[in-house]
């Protein structure tokens, strides 16, 4: 009888502790490094937003952005569009890497990238373009 109680209490402790562990599985995205990248992206979004709207820039399947139609970029912005996109992609790559590393699992960077790729597209506005297997698709 005593042994049975001991086993059951250990079982209960296991179940309770695994609940505690799954709460700890939440990803921390408030590290200084991640916050810095996020702020940089937030600032750049003001410049990118019109290009998403015009279809000049679209979301790629690997969580980055790409110039879809350079002719849709107004002349005054055309010179800087490639470096704008490159800077955004540099931040995005760093973001995925930093979230993985910051949570102690650098090997998760690829899966974090895939997760983001899906969420960017899901949250994109109507009329924005994204890539899927066949090519560019308008939302």
């Amino acid at each position, binding site marked *: 009888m005593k*042994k049975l109680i001991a*086993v059951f209490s*250990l*079982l209960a402790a*296991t179940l309770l*502790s*695994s609940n505690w*562990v*799954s709460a700890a*599985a*939440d*990803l921390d*995205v408030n590290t200084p490094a*991640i916050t810095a990248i*996020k702020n940089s*992206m*937030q600032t750049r*979004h003001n410049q990118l937003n019109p290009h998403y709207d015009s279809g000049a820039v679209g979301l790629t399947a690997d969580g980055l952005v790409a110039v879809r139609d350079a002719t849709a970029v107004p002349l005054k912005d055309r010179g800087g569009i490639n470096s704008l996109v490159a800077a955004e992609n540099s931040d995005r790559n760093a*973001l995925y890497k930093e*979230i993985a590393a910051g949570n102690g699992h650098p090997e*998760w960077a690829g*899966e*974090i990238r895939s*997760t*983001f790729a899906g*969420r*960017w*597209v*899901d*949250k*994109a*506005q*109507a009329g924005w373009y*994204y890539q*899927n297997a*066949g090519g560019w*698709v308008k*939302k």
Partner: protein
Amino acid sequence: MKKIGIIWALIALIPACVTINIYFPAAAAEKAADKIIDEVWQLKPGDEPPATPAVTKPAPVPAK
């Protein structure tokens, strides 16, 4: 004799505690991604972006 059985049961339970940390936390990742995307794109909580079709097929979606 019975003691061996209990010991094996306990040994079988221990990996369950570690399993959480080995597999990629997809739900937590999605939550983190949403949080960051909302801030980068300045999305308001009330915004309902149009649903992304899983396979691209021509329009009609049952209208409300």
